[in-house]
């Protein structure tokens, strides 16, 4: 095989990003048999069942909600459509753990809703258990559905109207057209969104901890913090990684030979205007989702913030925290985007299975908890530091100290490992929409592969790239464990502040930073939506 620069660069970047994951995976080579035996006898079967159930629940919940709302918004017009279309993306800005503690605070036994309920219907009145499977799945679905919504909506809008008309001419009712044509055609987009949602659910610790729901991630922390056995914890993480990989290949295999891109749309889809009770129902449904998934948590945070005003949450450092958070997120978004473009473009140019495998491997970090990735990053970095330091001391008698460990480089690298899946997914989707004949045209006009990327693809992808950068931006701001462990000394962010306060159960005091985080997340979400509204723009 001949190595051309782009696939080579892609493979290198992918392998670099995959290094911490490989470090994690390598832990399986030296299994801590004693811990595994203990886990197998006590928790593991239950853990696997609980984790699978969570994946299925969130997959169905976020997938169903996201797809349904995307179809509603893409196909119909109803009062408030123009607003709801983008309001529905907002829950993305709410960190899952914030949603988790707000919901539990509102709906558990001691919360205001149940107190009101008991007041109305008596002390023994039945109320669904919040800290339960249903509660976790509900909360996660409400926060994570926008991943599916954004991608599915773009896919529905890009579908050729003639395909849908062909189906109707063949006797399919409108509902049937959805199930038999539109939905299967949007499957790659929906699958990508569901994959993001499920991976995030797998990596989540905050919410499952609050709801006391035992998943793999919970077990990882239990083994690490409780049994003081980081090795065994890493092995569990490796198992989680295998889980994700299996899921990924399963989807690929099920997809088989079918193609989903149906060429360019000859006739843009014409929205159907709903009237009467149908219009009311559509508006009510979409509004309800926005209210519950966004209005409720933000309202609660606002309430707490006002209640604790003048408290210790806001101090001289506060604006510094906000600035740090935004700077870090922006820097990471740019780096993750560059990495994603290199990887995705290398994948496009190369038919090598090895390059493809590297690319895939590099995006698995999204399913791992931030702490595990942080430890995976910390190992190689400190090894590099020690090697360099030792060499410098031996040859020059000076110390380089800690060059990478606890530096921005280490932290940004960890974020890229964790979030490359998001940026890569968006870039790949954008590239897929550009026909290969355009590459050929560019090359035949004398452009190099890099020139084609620079002069053709990047301008065409601008919308998609912007969207990818914004998604990474929001996710970095929310990311907590990796930030805690790897941040440079003295560099605090909003997520760190939230951790500090919630770890001591100071929920009210944590409301202001949480609210700020949500607000900072709103801006990119708004830009994202404005872009995706333009015809032809990738999500």
């Amino acid at each position: 095989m001949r190595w051309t620069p782009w696939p080579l660069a892609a493979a290198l970047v992918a392998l670099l990003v995959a290094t911490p994951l490989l470090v994690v995976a390598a832990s399986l080579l030296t299994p801590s048999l004693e811990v595994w035996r203990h886990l197998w006898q006590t928790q593991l079967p239950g853990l696997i069942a609980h984790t699978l159930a969570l994946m299925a629940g969130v997959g169905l919940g976020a997938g169903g909600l996201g797809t349904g709302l995307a179809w509603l918004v893409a196909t119909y017009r109803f009062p408030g459509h123009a607003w709801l279309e983008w309001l529905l993306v907002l829950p993305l800005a709410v960190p899952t753990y914030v949603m988790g503690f707000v919901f539990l605070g509102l709906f558990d036994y001691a919360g205001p809703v149940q107190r009101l309920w008991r007041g109305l219907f008596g002390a023994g009145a039945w109320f669904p258990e919040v800290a339960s499977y249903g509660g976790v799945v509900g909360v996660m679905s409400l926060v994570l559905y926008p991943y599916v919504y954004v991608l599915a909506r773009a896919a529905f809008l890009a579908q050729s109207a003639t395909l849908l008309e062909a189906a109707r001419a063949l006797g399919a009712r409108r509902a049937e057209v959805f199930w038999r044509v539109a939905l299967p055609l949007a499957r790659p987009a929906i699958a990508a969104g569901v994959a993001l949602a499920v991976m995030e659910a797998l990596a989540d610790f905050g919410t499952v901890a609050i709801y006391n729901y035992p998943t793999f991630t919970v077990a990882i922390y239990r083994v690490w913090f409780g049994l003081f056995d980081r090795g065994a914890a890493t092995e569990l993480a490796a198992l989680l990684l295998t889980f994700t990989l299996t899921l990924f290949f399963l989807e690929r295999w099920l997809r088989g030979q079918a193609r989903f891109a149906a060429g360019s749309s000859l006739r843009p889809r014409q929205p159907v205007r709903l009237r009467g009770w149908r219009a009311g129902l559509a508006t009510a449904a979409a509004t309800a989702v926005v209210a519950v998934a966004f209005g409720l948590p933000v309202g609660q945070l606002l309430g707490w913030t006002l209640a604790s005003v003048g408290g210790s949450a806001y101090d001289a450092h506060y604006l510094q925290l906000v600035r740090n958070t935004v700077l870090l997120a922006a820097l990471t978004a740019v780096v993750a985007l560059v990495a994603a473009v290199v990887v995705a473009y290398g994948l496009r140019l190369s038919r090598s299975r090895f390059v493809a495998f590297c690319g895939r491997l590099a995006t698995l970090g999204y399913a791992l908890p931030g702490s595990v990735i942080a430890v995976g990053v910390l190992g190689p970095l400190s090894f590099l530091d020690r090697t360099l330091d030792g060499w410098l001391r031996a040859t020059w008698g000076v110390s380089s100290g800690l060059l990478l460990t606890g530096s921005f480089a280490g932290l940004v690298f960890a974020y890229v490992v964790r979030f490359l899946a998001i940026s890569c997914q968006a870039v790949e989707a954008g590239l897929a929409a550009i026909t290969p004949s355009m590459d050929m045209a560019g090359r035949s006009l004398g452009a190099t592969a890099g020139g084609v990327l620079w002069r053709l693809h990047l301008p065409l992808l601008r919308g998609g790239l912007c969207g990818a950068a914004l998604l990474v931006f929001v996710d970095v701001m929310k990311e907590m464990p990796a930030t805690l462990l790897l941040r440079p000394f003295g560099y605090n962010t909003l997520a760190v502040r939230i951790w500090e306060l919630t770890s001591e159960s100071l929920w009210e005091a944590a409301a202001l930073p949480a609210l700020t985080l949500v607000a900072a997340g709103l801006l990119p979400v708004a830009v994202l939506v404005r872009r995706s509204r333009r015809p032809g723009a990738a999500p």
Partner: protein
Amino acid sequence: MGRGRLFCSLVGLVGLALMLPAAEAAEVVVYSSRIEQLIKPMFDAFTAASGIPVRYFTASEAELIERLKAEGANTPADLFMTVDAGNLWLAEQAGLLQGVASPVIARHIPAHLRAKDNAWVGLSVRARPIMYSSERVMPEELSTYEALGDPKWRGRLCLRTSRKVYTQSLVAAMLKALGEARTEAVLRAWMANEPRIFNSDTKMLEAIAAGQCDVTIANTYYLARLKAKDPDFPVAVFWPNQQDRGVHVNISGAGITRHAKHRQEALRLLEFLSGPEAQRLYADANYEYPANPAVKPHPLIAAWGTFKADTVDVAVFGELQAAAVKLLDRVGYR
């Protein structure tokens, strides 16, 4: 885009990283899992008294330990601070701390609340007694932690998740006092009462107030915070096991790191923290019990009376934590 520009920004990043671990001047650098809000007042007092500035970095214990390990001899940290004994013990085991001889500390802090060679020192005491609904439970119904396994508490018991180190330390203390077989029997009796498991002490206390359950085990300062807001909060403290080993207490504490660059300053800080001025702040900032017996607790918790505390060496919590977690796994305590 210029490759040049990319290179420049990379160089910039590395330069930034280089600048960070500078400054060998007199200062103390603290890695702390005790949050900023609860340590800053003490550090400020220290700086005011000694002129030595304190810089600190907060994260959770396990992550701080990983960071200390990774940084090795290059670590900027002089002092490692946690909110439980187990992780201090673990850091000591991992060779991350160093012992110091200090008559001041020996005078201020009782021996069972610190390591033999002062590799770590307890600075505040966190008592974890039984708490009950003052509306539905009479104190006469309560006696010991073990007795919460009595069937009369079926459906009335709230417990903190076994993921929390508080629960793990409690069970470790029981393992030490009762042995494995009896501890397992106690835990199984608790589980037979179908306790509700909570992720937060505050939530448990609120659940008792709301009537979801009647009795629990919780750290005193959580109740103190609620009582400070609402003096009529309908939950009361019961000091269990007064006839035998006493109330389970944990510590928050600190130890000097093995590779401390400012060992002297760190020791001064540690000694200052064990002294009356800082201990007073400990007591007032978070309603914890001072580790220094000469300092009285906050009036709000002093009103709950004095009690006999378990004087088992708190290092046990670290030694037996893994055994405790495995036992908790075995009995199905989540």
